[in-house]
């Protein structure tokens, strides 16, 4: 039985709670949140031990691992404390707001020898994994351009009240929220950029943070990259992320539902004929034992627990990997 403590019981924290709660080999041993109305309700209805301070929880509960879903500005302190106590740590994305802290945390994680993972769940979506495979196997030839985008409706009007997502100091804004996912996914497929050529952070409705991020990136070998994210686009029902990768033999356009591949005549590859081949999530996504909001949320926690259990040594979204993403986020902020 793996004893897990949850730190942060907001939207993502409760989602992780439910997914872990559905596993027979996990015991949710404690929950920590600063909002008393959440912890008291959970304590009353599930009987779980609750804490309002993560240090008290790390001290008082006998844990193997923690899942941290608090505002990004708190990740460094909480993850450091958990690693120091010898726990395995899963942290929501982005890892840290300060790339130097991310790098420090990544080092700490490696030296601790504990499982460490960040919640970039898109890496567990079958269509994006297939896009990556096609790049890595050379099916697209020499890759020369990648573009990534994400659109959705998080902030669609000027507003009076606010949450941490609308405060820059706590990790709010489209750059850390939406763009981080896309940057990380681009890293997953083609590796990390060596330079941010230009960037724009645009406000649409928010007062303190940007609502859209546009950037030109340069990858090793002269590969160009383009990033476009906007969380104030209410023509999208929910967050919609798309990657397009261009190579000398063809291109691939991938989103959560489809992997659309176009190969030049003579560039057939495995089951992909020349011209268009469209493969869907129904065929590319491995099944999970419990579904909530998307297979990827379960798959990422399964991968984390496999590391904790010692069932696997193949880690995805390590702190080191997420710290590379944080470096690019920092470079975009600096270039804007």
């Amino acid at each position, binding site marked *: 039985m793996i004893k897990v403590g949850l730190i942060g019981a*907001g*939207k993502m924290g*409760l*989602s992780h*709670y*439910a*997914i*872990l*709660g*559905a596993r027979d080999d996990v015991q949710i041993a404690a929950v920590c949140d600063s*909002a*008393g*109305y*959440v912890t*008291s*309700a959970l304590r*009353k*209805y*599930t009987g779980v031990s609750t804490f309002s301070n993560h240090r008290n929880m790390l001290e008082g509960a006998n844990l193997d691992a923690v899942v941290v879903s608090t505002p990004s500005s708190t990740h460094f302190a909480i993850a450091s404390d958990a690693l120091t106590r010898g726990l395995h740590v899963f942290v929501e994305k982005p890892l840290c707001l300060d790339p130097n802290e991310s790098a420090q945390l990544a080092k700490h994680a490696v030296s601790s020898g504990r499982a460490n993972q960040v919640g970039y769940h898109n890496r567990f979506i079958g269509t994006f994994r297939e896009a990556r495979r096609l790049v890595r196997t050379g099916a697209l030839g020499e890759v020369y351009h990648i573009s990534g985008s994400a659109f959705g*409706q*998080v*902030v*669609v009007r000027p*507003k009076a*009240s*606010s*949450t941490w*997502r609308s405060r820059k100091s706590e990790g709010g804004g489209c750059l850390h929220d939406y763009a981080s996912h896309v940057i990380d996914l681009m890293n997953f497929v083609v590796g990390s950029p060596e330079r941010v050529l230009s960037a724009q952070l645009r406000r649409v409705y928010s007062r303190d943070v940007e609502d859209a991020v546009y950037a030109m990136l340069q990858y090793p070998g002269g590969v160009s990259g383009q990033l476009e994210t906007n969380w104030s686009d209410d*023509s999208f*029902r*929910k967050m*919609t992320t*798309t990657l397009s990768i261009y190579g000398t033999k063809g291109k691939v356009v991938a*989103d*959560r*539902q*489809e992997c659309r591949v176009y190969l030049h005549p003579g560039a057939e590859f495995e089951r992909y004929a020349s011209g268009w081949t469209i493969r*869907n*999530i*129904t*065929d590319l996504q491995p*099944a*999970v*034992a*419990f*579904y*909530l*909001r998307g*297979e990827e949320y379960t798959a990422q926690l399964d991968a984390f627990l496999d590391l904790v259990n010692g069932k696997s040594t193949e880690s995805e979204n390590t702190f080191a990997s997420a710290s590379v993403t944080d470096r690019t986020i920092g470079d975009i902020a600096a270039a804007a």
Partner: protein
Amino acid sequence: MQRLLFGDNQFFGVNHMSEEKARSQAMRFRDATSILRVLDCAYDSGIKVFMCTTHDRVGEVADHVRANLARYAEFEFYPCMPYAHKYANSVGEVGMVETIRRFAPGGILETLLRGAVSAATQDVEKLMQLLVDAEMKRFTGLRTPIIFLQNVVTDLLLGLKLEFLFSAFARHVRTKYGAEAGFITMNLPRLVEALERAGISMPIICANVNKIGFRMCGGIEAYKRVIASGRCRTIAMSIFASGAIAPAEAIEWVCALEGLQSIVFGASSSANIQQSKALIDRAWSLMAGA
């Protein structure tokens, strides 16, 4: 419970196969009139139930039906709540307490909260009732014999093991609306056990049921067993797995399942409605004759 139900994903830009298709459907069904045109086709072909989310535009459809009760004498709504993105987007935007304030009917939350926030919100059951009532307002005066909990909420509660809320929901919709509770899920075998523990016998459950096992957590064999067991009344959704299975093949497989009660499907055109209905009717009559 009716055997053939009309779903609404196609009206609200939900397509699990293609973002592009979802977008073009959202453009096509941009107002209630365009939705009603397709709904009328379904109704006139003999499908009397509209199983729908509590999307704002469904409110307009409800208004239309209410204003033309003679035309829609047998029309039934099976509301599915909540329209989760409305809440999820709001939680991201203004936080949880503000979201509750925004969607619970005017000022009632304030009354509840007066004094201590932490103590009052512990009464999760009362809060659930308020949110259900807010969602049900738009169906006043219409037939809603079954009221569903959407899968994002059902499966969240399932994972959190808050099973008492399943029975609280069932109790509330029965006493206040004279309706049966239904539960949408992606985890059918596990849910049946949880609902039985919650004291709900022969629950109405709507789940993905398709030949390729798409989003059937627990596996296709476990689904077949539980559907055939008679422990629940199952409505199959996503029978075409968003288009991954050809219609005739998909329908033949689903209709041959032992113990399956109903099928919900969506379609955007009169021709597709008629085709699917004819295939299902035929497959079921063959089954009955066998």
